Structure formats: structure tokens, C-alpha cells
């Protein structure tokens, strides 16, 4: 244990029930480095970091900070010892103001006999934003009124407000726009120069390679290796992550007919303050990628197309019947399926069985005379889907919340894809899903496309869009910025230019 290690973990393990999330991991981190953690979903990155940040307690092993034993019992306790973390999920309390969020649990510093001085608290928050060069967010509004990106900024300020020696960032950049990313890189460089340790998780491998000094690869809860990032390539990293070389993760096959007739037409869709005059066509048997920054309106557009959000102006036409899709009912009757981004809260009944989840969208297929909903048919159907989508579970009667994230996503996809669709809208289908299952999902998309179904793929990740789409529609500030045709050859640079 040399002095230069500001933080180290030794033989740390953690299990959740039968799942061994982290197995005997030992790592040494140096002060003044940006240390990246790379691995598939479920490889144990977040769990390991949560233990360091005091969110979880470890089952066994030891941790040291500055040569001393380090045993945080709570996040607050970790903060006191100079460790703070920005978690992967959204980490703000919607019902509190921004300022309250920044200092929640640490308000005693502004309190006089237990009463918090709001003015003092606001001033401290303003100073923090300014000091770290982060663009200011209004302080007295509720966090619920912020965009995802703004929320992440506030979380970052919150983490920095304790002036930590160790800053843990779990997939923070995904939500950031280009300029905030740049600001963050600058900030991290500054912190590094101050001799602080930054633990950085990202699925964006180029970013990780560029930003981090060293990278640790985890796989199935175990450490694979720690490497200097200099000279490393993405493919090498990927090989380490999955234990095999993945060169082609995408399963793009050209659309059967380049100029197929449209199946869905969006005409001048406007939702006040969110979408402006969005028009495009979706063709039979193509994948139309929808890309843009997180507040560009791509997710909102998906909801409009499915009839979840009503457009203030403009219309969505289902081309086969000429019907106007202005309600969920019409969308579903027209054979449109929608896989929402927020898996656990919108796409699944997490406490219910796999069977119930799989059967719900297709329930009409099981109805017999007198409205009899055959349990036998349901069971058979669920069993078939379980197999077809290779969902790893003990059986169809297992509760969904006992499954891993990837398998949950499979259940979600299976429940929608297993019914007769004409159009499928996928919102961030690989979000929070590991590489193996991601590949699986890409393969599925390619297969579905071959059936002549029109697919709209909404994604924050450019490589995914490039890898899967026939055309990519890039949105900016709620309007269509440009539609790229595959024939032109997608270039990441030109697309990013349009996006930002």
C-alpha cells in the first residue's frame, strides 16, 4: 500500500440475493487520475462504486482511503470522508427546489438553531455553480421542472459541494449536450490537476479512452484488468469486456425496397413549446432513426406518434387506412406498437409474472366465447415467447423484478413484438442493457424489418442509429434539422454538426 494510492479496495464482494454482483475485486486508485470503469451492464461497476460511495455495504473485503481503513456506512458518511458520487439514474428529488436538492442532508451548515437560512443556502449554491464553471440553473424552481441535462448538472454541483477528494461519476455524460460535455471535461481536468481522484463510468468507449488515464475492465462482477488508456483501442476493450472479439455489433441489412410506399405520415406536428412543425414519412420495412440531444423532442415525438401526447397542430396519418392517429386507441388498432424508454415504470408490470407481462398486449388473441380468457392459451403463448426471445428465467411464473435489466428489456420487447404490428416505435431499446443483449436486440430489429414492418428507432446514441437505420432524422430544438439517407453514407461528424 503505497502512499500514492488515495483509495484502494481489497477483495471486495457483494451479493444481492443469489446474484453475485461483485466478486473479490481489488483495485488501487491514484490521486490525480481519472480512472475509468468499463464493463457490460451487470458487470458490477455501479455496485462497486455504490459501495465506495456508502450507498451499499459490502459483504466482505476491505477498503482504504489515504492508507486508513475506510468504512462508509451511508452516503453522508462517505461525503464526510471526501467521497461523493453522481449516480447513474436520475438523482434529484422532484418535489424540492434546486437549492434544497443541492444541500439535502447537509443543510446544517446553513442552520441557526435548526432553522435553515434560505438566503445563505442560495448564495452558497450560486457560488458553487460559478466556481465549477457549470452553467447556472434557476435555484428556487422545483427540480421537476428541469430537463434531464439540467438535473444532471445540479447533481454534479451537489456532488462537488462537499469538496470531495474522490468524485464518482456514473454515466453522467450520456445526458449532456456537446458544450456541457466540453465544460465537464475541462472541469475534470482541473480537478485532476488539484490532485483529486475521479472515478468515471461510461458506455461511450471513445470518450472513456480519451478522458481517462487508466481503465479498469470488469466482467460478471470480477476484475478483468486495469490498463493504461494510452495506446488502447476500442476493439481491445470490447474484447476484454465480453471475453470475445465483437467487431460487428450491428446487424444492418438493407431495406428490401428502397422506395417502398409510406406506412406512416407525420404532417406538421406541433406541440406547444416542445415540437415545431415536424413532418416526415415512415416507409414499409425500413428503420427510421430519430436522433438528437436529450431535449430535442425525439422522445416527445415518439409519444405523439403513438397517440399518447396530443399534437396541438398537424396530424399523424396511418397510410394503409388514411386514418388520423390522434389517440392511443387508434394507434393500437392500426397496429402501432410502442416500447417506452422508461422500462420499469412504463413498459413493465415489475411485480407481476413474466406470463402476465407477455400476454397483456396480445390479450385479444386468447379470448374465447363468452369472453373467456383461456389460462391455457396464455400459458402456452408465454412459454413460446420466453423461448423465442431467449429470456433467462426460471419460468413464466417468475416475477419480472427478479430478472436482470437486460432480461427485463427482453420481456418488454417480447410483449410488444409478439403481436401483429405494422409499425414499431422503439424508444431507447438498449438503454441500460449490456452488450450481449444489445446485440440481440439489434438482430431482432433487423429481423422485424424483413417482415415489412416500419420501425422508428429513437436513440440518444449515435453509433446505434448509424448502425441500424436506413434513414436518420435528426431533430434540434423540437424541429426536424435534417434527414440523412443511408445512400449518402452516414458520417458521424456531419450528423453531430447538425445535432448541435
Amino acid at each position, binding site marked *: 500500500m503505497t502512499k500514492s494510492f488515495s483509495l484502494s479496495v481489497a477483495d471486495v464482494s457483494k451479493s444481492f440475493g443469489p446474484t453475485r454482483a461483485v466478486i473479490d475485486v481489488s483495485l488501487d486508485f491514484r490521486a490525480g487520475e481519472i480512472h475509468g470503469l468499463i464493463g457490460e451492464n451487470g458487470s458490477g461497476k455501479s455496485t462497486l462504486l455504490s459501495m465506495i460511495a456508502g450507498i451499499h455495504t459490502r459483504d466482505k473485503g476491505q477498503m482504504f482511503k489515504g492508507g486508513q481503513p475506510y468504512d462508509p456506512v451511508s452516503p453522508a458518511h462517505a461525503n464526510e470522508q471526501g467521497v461523493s458520487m453522481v449516480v447513474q439514474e436520475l438523482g434529484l428529488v422532484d418535489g424540492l427546489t434546486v437549492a434544497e436538492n443541492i444541500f439535502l442532508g447537509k443543510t446544517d451548515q446553513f442552520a441557526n438553531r435548526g432553522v435553515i437560512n434560505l438566503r445563505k443556502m442560495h448564495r452558497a449554491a450560486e457560488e458553487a455553480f460559478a466556481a465549477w464553471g457549470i452553467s447556472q440553473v434557476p435555484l428556487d424552481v422545483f427540480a421537476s421542472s428541469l430537463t434531464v441535462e439540467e438535473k444532471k448538472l445540479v447533481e454534479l454541483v451537489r456532488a462537488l459541494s462537499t469538496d470531495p477528494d474522490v468524485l464518482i461519476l456514473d454515466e453522467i455524460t450520456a445526458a449532456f449536450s456537446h458544450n456541457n460535455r466540453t465544460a465537464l471535461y475541462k472541469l475534470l481536468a482541473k480537478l485532476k490537476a488539484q490532485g483529486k481522484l475521479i472515478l468515471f463510468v461510461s458506455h461511450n468507449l471513445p470518450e472513456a479512452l480519451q478522458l481517462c488515464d487508466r481503465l479498469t475492465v470488469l466482467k460478471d462482477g470480477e476484475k478483468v484488468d486495469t490498463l493504461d488508456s494510452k495506446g488502447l483501442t476500442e476493439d481491445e476493450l470490447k474484447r476484454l469486456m465480453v471475453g470475445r472479439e465483437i467487431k460487428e455489433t450491428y446487424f444492418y441489412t438493407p431495406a428490401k425496397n428502397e422506395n417502398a410506399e409510406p406506412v406512416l405520415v407525420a404532417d406538421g406536428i406541433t406541440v406547444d413549446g416542445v415540437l415545431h412543425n415536424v413532418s416526415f414519412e415512415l416507409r414499409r420495412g425500413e428503420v427510421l432513426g430519430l436522433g438528437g440531444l436529450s431535449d430535442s423532442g425525439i422522445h416527445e415525438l415518439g409519444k405523439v406518434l403513438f397517440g399518447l401526447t396530443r399534437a396541438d397542430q398537424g396530424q399523424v396519418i396511418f397510410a394503409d387506412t388514411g386514418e388520423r392517429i390522434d389517440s392511443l386507441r387508434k394507434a393500437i388498432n392500426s397496429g402501432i406498437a410502442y416500447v417506452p424508454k422508461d422500462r420499469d415504470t412504463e413498459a413493465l408490470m415489475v*411485480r407481476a409474472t413474466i406470463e402476465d407481462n407477455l400476454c397483456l398486449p396480445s390479450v385479444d388473441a386468447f379470448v374465447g366465447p363468452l369472453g373467456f380468457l383461456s389460462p391455457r392459451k396464455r400459458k402456452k403463448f408465454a412459454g413460446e415467447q420466453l423461448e423465442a426471445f431467449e429470456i433467462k428465467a426460471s419460468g413464466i411464473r417468475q416475477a419480472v423484478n427478479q430478472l436482470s435489466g437486460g432480461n427485463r428489456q427482453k420481456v418488454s420487447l417480447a410483449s410488444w413484438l409478439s403481436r401483429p404490428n405494422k409499425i414499431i416505435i422503439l424508444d431507447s431499446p438498449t438503454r441500460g442493457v449490456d452488450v450481449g443483449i444489445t446485440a440481440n436486440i439489434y438482430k431482432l430489429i433487423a429481423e422485424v424489418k424483413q417482415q415489412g414492418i416500419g420501425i422508428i428507432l429513437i436513440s440518444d446514441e449515435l453509433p446505434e442509429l448509424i448502425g441500424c437505420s436506413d434513414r436518420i432524422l435528426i431533430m434540434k430544438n423540437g424541429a426536424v434539422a435534417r434527414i440523412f439517407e443511408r445512400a449518402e453514407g452516414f458520417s458521424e461528424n456531419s450528423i453531430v454538426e447538425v445535432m448541435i
Partner: protein
Amino acid sequence: MKNRKLSWEHIIPFAGLVCLILLFTVLVGDKFWRPYNLKSILNQTVLYMFGGLGLIFVIAQGSIDLSQGAVLALSATISAILVNKYGLWLIFPSAILLGALFGLLNGVIISKLKVPSVTCTLAFSIAYRGLLPVFTRGGPIYVPFKLFDLYNFENMFPVLVLLTIIFGYLFEYTKVGYFSKAIGENEIKARNSGVPVEKMKIIAYVLCGIMAGIAGVFTLSRVGGVDVSIGNFFELEVMLAIFTGGVPVTGGMSTRIYRLFIGALTIGVLVNGLTLYGVSAALAEGVKGLMLIGLVFLAARFTAGKRAVTA
């Protein structure tokens, strides 16, 4: 259903009932087992079973109906007035229709206008109870003596069986029940999957109202007429039965209709047994409360791994 294991979650409500029966067999002796007493227990619980057959749809959706007692009272009262005017044949049609109407009002306001079910049904409960004296005009309303015969074991048991078959089928084997449970699990997922959520909510409240109406007719035949206190706290007793039977408070897929019957019988046996044993109503209520907490706690504890319990 091969691999459905017999878990504690299923056993505890039954175990509670069996324990109580054993306890009272010891304490009260043969009085408890006399046919008259067994019939009495059923007589005292059957109304709550009726109410529960409707309420369980609402509870499965994760909502609540606190107006069932008031709906029972108002539909019974108006029906009694109509019956006295136009003849006994009208009793079921009018009570069912009125119950359905009140349920419809609940359902529309809750689903279309997004008023939380607690608020809406509580407010209607107060309003309907306020309307009651307008109809009773200060005195009781009598029903024809003929109606008294409705409330005996021989007539009621077949009705209970019939209604259980109808509602049980609806709840366990049709889209109405399946969708209701899906709404209780995750309303957003249900809506996205094509479940007509608003329609299902309205249906659930209409069913709830219909059962309140039917329970109202039987209440009339049981108490002999209308008094303003009719149906007081009916909804709480029904809820008590459902939750004591182990139905999760948040509703969802594990809501089962048999639990209603177990719960209602448990409460019925408890109250009857304590009364026979000579325990005052005051103490009996405390025991009821303890048992509710105890049974819900045990049932939730043994399923905590599978089902998130929200505190």
C-alpha cells in the same frame, strides 16, 4: 399451473380462519357449531361478500371506493320508495340500476376528470348521506313483509353462489378482471398495451355500484326497512374483509376473489365468536384491528421478496 408453489402468502389467511374456528370451538363450545349460529355467521358476512364482489375490481385497480355504503343506502332508500308505489317486482331492477348509476358517476369523475378515488368517493359518500333524509323525510320507510323472506339462508345461498360465479368468472377469466389487475400493477403499461383504462375504471365502479345496490336490497330485507343509519361503515367492513383475506392494498395481479371470502368469514367468525363469548363490542373492535394488522403483516412478510411493499 404446475409450478405455482403453495406459499405462505396463500396459507396465512386460511390459517388465520382455522385458528379462530379452533379457538372459539374451545372457548364457546357447541354453541358455536350449532346450525343456527353457523347460519348467523353467514348471514352476517354475506352482505360484505356481496359488496366485496364489486369492490374487488376497484381494489385490483389500486383504487378505492369509500362511497359503497352511501350508495347502498341511497339506492335502497329510493328503491324502497318505488317499491311501495309500484310493487315489489321493481326492487332488484331499481336498486341495480341506481347502484350502477351512482357507480357510473364515480367512475366518470375519477377516470375522466382525474379526481383521486379517495377524494371523489369520500365526497360522494358525504353528499349521498346528506341526501338520504330528503328521501326518508324523518321517518323509517317500510318494505313489504314479503321481502323479509329474501334474507334467509335458503334463498340467499343460491344468490351468493350465482353472483360469485358471475363475478368470479368476470374477475378471473375475462378481460375485465385481467385488465383491472393490470391497471393495478402498472397503469401506464396497461394503457400502452391497449387496455382501455378509463373504460375499465368506469366498469369497475359500475360493478361496485351494482353490488352495493344488490347488497342494499338484501339489507332492506334483513333490517326490515330504511333507516338513515343503513349501510353505515359498510365500505370499511368490506375493505376489512378484503384486506384481511390478504389482497394486496395496491391491487394488481395477485388479487384473488377467494381471498374476499376468507377475509369476510374471518371477520364474521371473530365478531360472532367474541360476542358469544361475552366480549364487549368495544374490545371486539380492538381485537379486529389487531387481527387486521397481524394478518396483513404476516401475509406481506412472507411475500416481501417477491412483491415490493410500499410503506
